[in-house]
């Protein structure tokens, strides 16, 4: 599989989850694990550009696919990706644990709806749980990210 554009050897352990493979075999610890049953969305990554729960996939299932994690959105030292920048501007994160999952989901939402309505924003992030922000700032961040993405 290719992760953030880099080819990696196939995972060895057939029962390894994609989330654990990314975190513990490849050291990409920006992908977080909040529930391991596909509800919280903390582990969201892009598989061939579409958001998926990496805790609900085996690593071997990602063979032959392109995986993008939070670390792949903006290179070290480069400016933040528009979605990351919008979360910063709108105080869209507090503890930061759910944040990578939200950011990846929002990248997916904006690919589908470049000008999301309020309902599309709410529905779009309704697969991710946040316990800190109360979501208002995240909704603002999605709208702001749509603006920034056009610049």
């Amino acid at each position: 599989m290719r992760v953030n554009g880099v080819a990696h050897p196939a995972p060895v352990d057939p029962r390894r989850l994609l989330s654990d493979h990314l975190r513990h075999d490849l050291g990409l610890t920006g992908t977080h694990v909040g529930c391991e049953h596909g509800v919280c969305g903390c582990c969201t990554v892009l598989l061939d550009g579409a958001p998926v729960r990496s805790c609900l996939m085996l690593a071997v299932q990602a063979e032959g696919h392109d995986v993008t994690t939070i670390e792949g959105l903006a290179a070290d030292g480069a400016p933040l990706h528009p979605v990351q920048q919008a979360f910063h501007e709108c105080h869209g994160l507090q503890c930061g644990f759910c944040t990578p999952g939200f950011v990846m989901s929002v990248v997916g939402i904006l690919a589908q709806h470049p000008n999301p309505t309020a309902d599309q924003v709410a529905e779009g992030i309704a697969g991710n749980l946040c316990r800190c922000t109360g979501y208002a700032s995240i909704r603002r961040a999605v709208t702001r990210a749509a603006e920034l993405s056009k610049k």
Partner: protein
Amino acid sequence: MTTRWFGERVPRVEDDRLLRGHGRFTDDIDDGALESVLVRSPFAHARILSIDVTAARAMPGVVAVYTAADLPFGQTDLPILIPHPRLTHGRTQRCLASEVVRYVGEAVVFVVAESRSVAEDAAEVVQVDYEQLPVVITPESAARAEHLVHDDVPGNVAAEMIQEAGAVEASLASAPRRKRLHFRFERGAGSPMEARAVWARWSTAEHKLTVYDSTQSPTSIRGGLAVLFGLPESNVEVIAPDVGGGFGPKIMLFYPDELLVPFAAMKLGRPVKWTEDRQEHFTAVNQERGQVHEVEVGFDEEGKVLALDVDFIHDAGAYTPYGIILPIITAAQVPGPYRVPNYRVRFRDVYTNATPTSPYRGAGRPHACFVMERTLDAIAAELGLERAEVRRRNLIQPDEFPYEVGVGWQDGNMVVYDSGNYPALLQKALTNLGTRPSGDHVGMGLGMYVEGTGVGPYEGAHVQVLVSGKVVAATGIPSQGQAHATVWAQIVADQLGVDVADVEVTGGDTRRFPWGVGTFASRGAVTAGNAMAVAAGMVAEKARHIAADHLEVDPADLELVGGKVQVKGSPDRGMPLAAIAVLANPVRYAFGGGTEAATQFTARPRPGPQLHEGEQPGLEATGYYSPPGSTWAAGCHAAYVRVDPQTFRLEILKYVVIHDCGRVINPLVVEGQIEGGVAQGIGGAFYERLAYDDEGQLRNASFMEFLMPYATEIPAIEIDHIETPSPLNPLGVKGAGEAGVIPVGAVLASAIEEALGIPITEMPLSPLKLFELSRPS
């Protein structure tokens, strides 16, 4: 002091690395660590007949399996963190149970293996034989005491306490009207997105224990580990790295893993880690909120409260590690912002066969607020008065501070409100709420609260200007998302006249600052915030003196601006802080960074020894702040809701918050705290319910069934502030972390009651609960 940063919406300095996926949470730390799993009790109450770990020990890849018998501290009860004379029957669990288990999730066996999957496989072959015992699960059944949770605790009562201010019996007897009310509040759970985790390494060569822990109190963990393992505190390092939400339950100490992981690391000579999974978090981590209240209120025809008699039972859970702080807070906070001239409160803290309770955001207050606000609504209904008018008539007035309530507070002192303007909060909330939306089944809800914040005993801070001119600052308390690195930097930057970007803050790392208490009880801004101001003020003073010496001016004529110390009004007569940092440390050997200016042949001659008596090297200082008493924040929430009479779906049409936490350091951060608090309140009031069955099994221990709200359930929250500075601390700040959650249950109950015309006396609600309450009985 200039106030360039204080009060500004400074964007958070901690965001960049968290947004890039470069945060560092405990489970992100590996370093070849062995992994571990706990075998937990599947029963709520049972006697352990035997434990057989033979098969687990024999499994390839298993490194160690520990039962209580294998631990030198296996027969030691874990500490009661906050002893109290009224806690006559305090009980705590042992690190691993070996005789009786008293809640589902109590730890029994600890397995360490080369990998997590091997540890989990080994845990499955551990054989524990149990004899089930009768289960006590509700606080009411605990109080009836048909069965005992602890054989040696009569009546299941851990503690009983009565307090009285005024003369309740007499004033009730003479009150024109009396009313009896019954309220029930169920358990809730903090459920941070990051479950708990611990990583530990023992260095034999350095004789040093290093522990990473997703805790809200690394300093206390360090103290406890030093005592347990007989090490000097200086040989124990505890770091709370990025912590993925806390909300209270991460300040329990000790959870068994916090002892077992360091113990195993020391025994095995390899790093060991443990990461909790979501399912075990549901029962292994402390919960809160279960209380049942019987209330009698006496009032007059105007709706003024004359006497209030509250008798409640508090669900302690299986043990009382946190003492009786929760019911003490509830008892203290029932009167809220209202004059209650005669107040009596009695509580019994009762054991149940459920997870122990300790503070969860709000900590005893949401239920206290629910009791008082529902009581005022009942008075309004009986007298046919507006709910707001009844509140207006009972509010403490702005000229009545300091205001003594007459009961005890969690810090051992009496409750004394320091400042506030409650009528202004109410008025502003009603104004912002505006006119009632049209339509059927719409209800208005209103709730007011006070919150004792900023409890002691103290926090400290270290601030240093480096020879580069950059500033580093550290405090003992960690952040779980409250933007400490930003707000502490704002405070320090103002004191030193530097840019926020030039201040780098470390929290929760005992290597950088070993003393302090923890992040809880909305206390960070008051305690650590003021400590930062104290330490940075000391550094500023030192800088002024060194500069005055060099510039040959009076220190009083100097100001710190733009990274320089300069003569007031003469920006050209000054010197950079970086240069002062060099001069503050007389050196023999120049090591670069301009330090040649502080060597013996180049420094400006100065009579006497190079460090005068009482002087310390370095442009740095350590300062502490210990509050004289709690600061009392306050607020008013109001909402319009609509409830569908067929499906009982709740729609929050408008939700307004007026909040007073004294001087606001960073409105962006405070508003985030409030929005998050209200969302947690909405979850706790209408969606989240811990569904324990009669056997003490939590039937919904997953996010599939424990319904934490998503963005689709939480409305926009309209927030406004008033500021009544606290007279108790130099910054005039009060705490803000818990405020958002406190009145939400009361507000929604009030609104739903009006929308559906059915009495609401319990929390949490749900569509099903409203359906049941609406059916003719």
